[in-house]
């Protein structure tokens, strides 16, 4: 494993933490003058810290340490800095930071640089405000010196520094050279939220223009001089290896050059993508499957069901659960199954690597800078800092590019190495390669039991989970404590409801060799479903309204209650639903969940046809993510999360048959289409708390809200994802 020293970072400060954040007020300095992307016009630039460059042409460049993979991260990071700088938003441009964890580490990940866990804005909030305010102070001091007036008399707005009494004004660019001579202030005053002009207002996305005219550059678009394209033959089962191969036919394909064996298969290198694909398809590989994983999903699930009959390792407990069940007037039981699921980003995984005398250079939708640097350094015998990474836009990730084993990056490196490092290589995974490469959201089985007393009060709660660990054996293994992988049980172990006696336990099978990984919202992608759908069964059994029961159990959780009340009110909870077409059944369902320190409640309205097919008509969302840096982007993320989660609830499933992945493309793994997208309303709770995540938290409540709406409409609460519509027939 890499030498990445992030093992000691606690879970809270690692993936989710805003609590206990310690901020270094010593801002890292910008790189040596060789920093990329400088325009010729920007001579004598002002580079007060690692996050900002102001050119004499008035350009304001914010350096983003996090990947833009769709979540509006570049725009959000730019907004925070520009706010405190008082820059004119239209002059701000965003540039991806180089890989350098000494300056660009994720403050929630200790010394590692990377993007994930909905942390980009949250961990950058104080840092970028400080960076902007500090630069602003230097510009003000430079103006005060030039005009010989007190700094206190100087105002800044929209990139212009003014001294109103003497009617003098200078643009940032005109002060850049003098500002760079000023001392970096040790303490600066940050704005009061009431004075914000960009944060909480409307700052248009910085990537909209280039992403609507074809100019945005993704890894897939990179073409270097002399570059070869590699397409790889991968084994049909996880754990299989190359026994032998015949490259004869592949090499006869026009455009094909080298055919090389690598640890993960056989790579065909060609002058272009189509030739490489044709070469790969002509390749004959004999696989050694003696150590391959050969179980199917049904067999795995059957094993998990057996395991669930026995107690697992305790993840959380309170009170005396056995006593509560012994004295129960009524016991409610349910089980829930969740499949493996692929990320299926629209841009299949890919990576460009070039070896040079200085080291190696990577072009990638880079999500794990430090981990990838260490992996590549190991393969090429370099120092990590000799691995230069160009962070490009990623055509989606949803967790896939934050690979704990750097899988596709490592594969690209092995191809470069096996082909002698002669030419730069672009590794291209075709859709089928991407879908069958593993690193899925793990398959999980949950069982639930609730004890109700004679008055219908919920007195006991048992929750058992069975599924593979994502973190074991990864650089984040420190988050596995006493056999409990924190991300296996997140969302379940921190159940917000006040239930006097509860117990959650976990089985982590170690003999299932299917590569697994975080998938947008990680553990909450299944725990929110089991807990929230089961709670509706409890509500039904106790004759209580689902919203009322939740509010009753959320007594000491004001932020959960806040979003729940708002969503219920905006959705018209309690008012009758308009009937659907004859023969259809309609229902409304609710769910609330906290993930990544943000709180989201959703109310879904669903119409179920006589044949069991269903349409989600409307989803009302309420969100508390602290200060919404960019409210329109918060809405956009939650709208998208609704569609992403609905796609999973309706269709998302990777199936193994005898160990081989059945699905290969969007025919077998359908995604939600525009005609299936519900109306979505997003309501944001006003807040003065520091911003928390928004990339993921919209996902978890959707499937349970829809399932509860199905339950309200049909009386059947789906016990598995994706929904089996045949079970919902009238």
């Amino acid at each position, binding site marked *: 494993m890499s030498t990445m020293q992030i093992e000691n970072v606690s879970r809270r400060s690692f993936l989710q933490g805003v609590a206990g954040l310690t901020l270094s007020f010593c801002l890292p300095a910008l790189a040596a003058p060789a920093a990329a992307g400088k325009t010729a016009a920007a001579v004598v630039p002002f580079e007060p810290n690692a996050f900002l460059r102001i050119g004499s042409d008035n350009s304001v460049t914010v350096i983003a340490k996090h990947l833009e*993979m*769709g*979540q*509006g991260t570049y725009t959000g990071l730019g907004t925070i800095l520009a706010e405190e700088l008082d820059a004119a938003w239209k002059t701000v441009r965003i540039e991806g930071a180089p890989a350098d964890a000494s300056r660009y580490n994720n403050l929630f990940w200790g010394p590692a640089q990377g993007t994930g866990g909905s942390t980009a804005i949250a961990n950058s909030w104080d840092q970028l405000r400080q960076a902007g305010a500090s630069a602003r102070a230097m510009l003000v001091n430079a103006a005060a010196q030039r005009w010989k007036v007190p700094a206190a008399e100087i105002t800044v707005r929209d990139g212009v520094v003014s001294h109103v009494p003497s009617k003098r004004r200078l643009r940032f660019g005109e002060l850049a050279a003098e500002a760079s001579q000023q001392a970096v202030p040790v303490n600066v005053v940050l704005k009061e939220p009431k004075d914000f002009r960009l944060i909480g207002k409307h700052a*248009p*996305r910085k*990537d*909209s*223009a*280039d*992403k*609507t*005219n*074809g*100019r*945005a*550059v*993704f890894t*897939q*678009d990179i*073409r270097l001089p002399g570059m070869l*394209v590699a397409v790889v033959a991968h084994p049909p089962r996880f754990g299989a290896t190359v026994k032998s191969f015949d490259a004869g036919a592949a090499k006869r394909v*026009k455009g094909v050059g080298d055919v090389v064996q690598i640890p993960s298969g056989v790579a065909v290198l060609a002058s*272009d*993508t*189509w030739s490489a694909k044709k070469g790969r398809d002509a390749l004959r590989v004999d696989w050694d499957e003696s150590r391959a994983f050969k179980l199917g999903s049904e067999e795995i699930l059957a094993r998990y069901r057996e395991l669930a009959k026995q107690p697992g390792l305790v993840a959380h407990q309170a009170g005396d659960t056995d006593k509560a069940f012994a004295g129960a007037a009524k016991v409610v039981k349910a089980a829930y199954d969740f499949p493996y699921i692929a990320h*299926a*980003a*629209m*841009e*299949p995984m890919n990576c460009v690597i070039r070896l040079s005398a200085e080291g190696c250079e990577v072009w990638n939708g880079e999500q794990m800078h430090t981990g990838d640097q260490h992996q590549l350094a190991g393969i090429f015998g370099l120092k990590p800092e000799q691995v230069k990474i160009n962070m490009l*836009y990623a*055509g*989606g990730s949803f967790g896939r590019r934050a690979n704990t084993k750097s899988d596709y990056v490592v594969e690209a490196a092995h191809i470069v190495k096996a082909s002698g490092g002669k030419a730069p290589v672009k590794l*291209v995974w*075709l*859709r089928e390669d991407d879908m069958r490469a593993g690193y899925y959201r793990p398959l999980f089985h949950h069982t639930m039991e609730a004890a109700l007393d004679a008055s219908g009060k919920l007195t006991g709660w048992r929750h058992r989970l069975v599924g593979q660990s994502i973190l074991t054996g990864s650089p984040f293994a420190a988050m596995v404590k006493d056999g409990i992988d924190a991300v296996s049980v997140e969302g379940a172990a921190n159940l917000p409801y006040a239930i006097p006696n509860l117990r959650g336990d976990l089985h982590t099978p170690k003999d299932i060799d299917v590569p697994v990984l975080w998938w947008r919202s990680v553990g909450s992608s299944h725990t929110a479903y089991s807990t929230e759908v089961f709670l509706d069964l409890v509500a039904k059994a106790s004759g209580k309204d689902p919203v009322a029961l939740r509010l009753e159990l959320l007594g000491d959780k004001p932020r959960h209650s806040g979003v729940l009340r708002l969503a219920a009110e905006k959705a018209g909870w309690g008012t009758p639903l308009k009937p659907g077409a004859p023969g259809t059944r309609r229902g409304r369902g609710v769910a609330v969940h906290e993930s990544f320190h943000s709180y989201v409640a959703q109310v879904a309205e669903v119409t179920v046809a006589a044949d069991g097919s269903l349409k989600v008509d409307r989803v009302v969302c309420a969100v508390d993510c602290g200060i919404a840096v960019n409210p*329109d*982007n918060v809405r*956009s*993320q939650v*709208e*998208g*999360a*609704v*569609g*992403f989660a*609905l*796609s999973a609830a309706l269709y998302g499933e990777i199936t193994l048959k005898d160990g081989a992945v059945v699905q290969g*493309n*969007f*025919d077998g793994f359908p*995604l*939600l*289409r*525009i*005609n299936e*997208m519900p*109306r*979505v309303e997003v309501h944001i709770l006003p807040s003065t708390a520091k911003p928390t995540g928004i990339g993921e938290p919209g996902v978890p409540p959707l499937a349970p809200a829809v399932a509860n709406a199905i339950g309200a409409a049909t009386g059947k609460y789906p016990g598995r994802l994706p929904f089996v519509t045949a079970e919902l027939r009238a």
Partner: protein
Amino acid sequence: MIQLNVNGKPQSVDVAADTPLLWVLRDTLGLTGTKYGCGQALCGVCTVHVDGAPMRACVTPVSAVAGRKVTTIETADQSRVGKAVQEAWRKLDVVQCGYCQSGQIMGAIALLSQNRKPTDADIDNALSGNLCRCATYVRIRAAVHLAAKSLA
């Protein structure tokens, strides 16, 4: 050599006749705005116009478009409809990761070129073959309506 007309320019390319138009655009001509997503006309990210009609470039052999007019996202702004669509997309900040949006926009332009006042059902019919993993569909729909309004 196959003779093409791409974005109003004549091009001759020396590729196998079965090469999909997508890879000729991307790898031979360097027009990378058109994306690869599935290779089987299942996702629509490679949508271009051939003689004004939307086509999935990933399954269209280059020989099938010889002598026909191919238009890609790179020159979408050269038509009034294309410009209106791009402006609507920007006004509403439709994009997230952006990878599918060239295809979405080419699909929307084709729709609005035929139908200046599309209903939601018309939009569904025209764009249900264009997948978006970020699920920007709410805004795509709104942007098509906004573009229609600006063209009225």
